[in-house]
């Protein structure tokens, strides 16, 4: 019995101080690691957010790209509305153009090779909701003279859009040939007061309608 006790005493073991020291060291190392990675996390969040927003605006533009490519620059078939013709208040960046696709989604219609216009597409930014919206009006191929047309029902093609602008180019030309689209989108994290990174993203693209 005495031998057994003396054998245990002869073995070296952990005392409570050792354990406490180990935990403290581990905590220090983890804390240091976290501190090292903290900016990296921020950077990652920023990169991720930026790419996500850029993809958002790219997707919004992509949703109208085919329609804009397929439309015409004929007078009053492609109309950009400003405050003077009703695009003001809760409306921003209002544009209308015709499509040769029935109900805006069907097969492109041609007769003797030429497009047969089937419907009118309206796109605008609803400022209060920051939604970029698209309305298909299959009842007419002549956009309204003054904004707003009947805008219900519509689909949302972009969210968190803070600014939208459509411009016919060359600027001031009575015979424009291209449409410039500029969308500004705000990051979801922009509301956080501690957010130190870029919060707004802009995509500007120029479209060349291909039909006469």
């Amino acid at each position, binding site marked *: 019995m005495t031998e057994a006790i003396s054998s245990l005493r002869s073995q070296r073991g952990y005392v409570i101080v050792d354990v406490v020291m180990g935990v403290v060291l581990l905590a220090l190392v983890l804390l240091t690691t976290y501190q090292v990675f903290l900016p990296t996390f921020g950077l990652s969040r920023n990169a991720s957010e930026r*790419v996500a927003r850029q993809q958002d605006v790219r997707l919004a533009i992509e949703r109208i790209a085919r329609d804009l490519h397929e439309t015409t620059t004929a007078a009053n*078939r492609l109309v950009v509305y400003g405050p003077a013709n009703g695009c003001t208040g809760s409306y921003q960046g209002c544009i209308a153009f015709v499509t040769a696709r029935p109900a805006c989604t069907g097969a492109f219609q041609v007769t*003797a090779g030429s497009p047969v216009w089937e419907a009118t597409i309206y796109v605008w930014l609803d400022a209060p909701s920051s939604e970029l919206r698209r309305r298909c009006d299959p009842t007419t191929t002549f956009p309204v003279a003054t904004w707003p047309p009947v805008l219900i029902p519509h689909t949302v093609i972009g969210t968190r859009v803070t600014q939208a602008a459509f411009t016919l180019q060359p600027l001031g030309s009575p015979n424009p040939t291209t449409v410039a689209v500029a969308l500004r989108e705000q990051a979801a994290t922009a509301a956080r007061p501690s957010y130190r990174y870029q919060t707004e993203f802009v995509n500007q693209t120029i479209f060349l309608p291909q039909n006469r």
Partner: protein
Amino acid sequence: MALVTVLATLIIVTAIAMSLVGLLHTDITHASIQHAVASSFAVAQAGLAEAQAAVFAASDPFTYTNPSGTAGEQRPYGQNGQFIYWVDTGPAAGSPCGPGLKTLEALGEVTYLRRQIPARVRACGLPGTPYLAALFGVSIVEAQGATSRTYIVPFQASTPGSPRGGALGSFTEINFGDAGVHLNAVSETGVETLALRDGVFPDYALFGFSSRPAYEANPAVEPVPWITAVFGDIIKAQPTTGPLANRCGTAFACVTAQNSSTDVPSIQALRAAEHMRHAYMNGMVQQVLPPLVFDPDSMRSMAAANGANQTLNQDAGLGGKTDSVYAPAEFTLLVAHLASHCPPRCLRGTVYVDGTYRFMQTVTLGGESGDVTLAVRGDLIIDGNISVTNRHDLSTVAGRRLPGVMVFGLATPTPGSTNACGGNQVNGSGRFILCGGSSQRLTVDGLLYSVDGMVIGPQAMVDQIGAMHHSNRGTANRSFTNQNGTLVIRFDPMALSAVGRGLTVVSWQQLR
């Protein structure tokens, strides 16, 4: 213990780092895929342009198909891209664009992460047609007089603006000589009708409208529906060979009002500032276009080989004449016979008159749906109050492509000139003159061409399905003058394929 701690930390750090890299990589991948989507569209467009160039360069654009057939013509493009195009083969086979048109289709692909990102586009094109203009003049194109009426409407409009009306163009100048000139002024003050070969129509119906537009008192404000969208453009053109001099001093043709030599910049300015209240077109565009040249000798050869009129020649007193090349005196005999026998016994094929010719009696050349091309090697004059008809079978592509009247002029015009009518001087330079009168009517299909210009005299009526191109031989003559007459061109772009060169795209769509 310390070793275990370090190892555990390393494992945690590595896991976090790897997930970070993965996260960033995924985002970049998404963005790159979207870039590839945009790139593939550009590559497809490049393929379509290549297909257009191939048709343009073809010796026979009408029958051209891409040489590899259904497999398509495959070309690398850019760093990771390639396109395949088809002309009337593969996915473009079966005339999806319609008879007489070429279907061009291109597939653009960009490789990203071993995936093919595709885009597919299609265009419908008119072969043998270097440009689209319903009425085009090398020198001045003008409308004069308060009762001058010109309508350039689409052939077979399905809905308003589908297709749009034809364009009006010049290499030098388009002049509106009088504030009363009407151009596409559809039923401005009340319903106006036009008596054409196939019935009497309200003028707005020719553009596809079901009712009369409501006009605004202010000329700067457009009528409702917004009718200008359904009209063609005014083409301020410049030849590919370089600018032609005009009195405005502009490199491209200018648009002028009355005697002014100032270029009018827009339709709005023409209507409001220049007081041309009755002129309606879509817009004004500048284009560089190829000058057109037709060969009189090839027409003569075709007429010489045309034996289809042998019996008619005999009946008209031209016994033994087997071809269709006539001296003016011979053609007078033939016209006298046709006047009382056509229809049903009418001319056929290409007919060539070797010298200046003057129609002095009402005549139908080829019947209701013929295939006559009248070529004149001199001037062509239609006396006052005379009707001349030369209609084609427009139910066929061949009928629509056939030229109607070609006035080539003498190889060397005579030194002096004579008064054809109404002060219009002729010397064999290749003028086409309608003397006018309330009973004068020219009903013609296909291309109407003159080497030294056309005049529509007072009260004359021209009812054409096709297109006009009028040249100039370096004389002071205008290429086209509507002098208080009425011109209705139902523009059929296929009429311009008589040129036989080039390709003009009439529609474009994105399939994918």
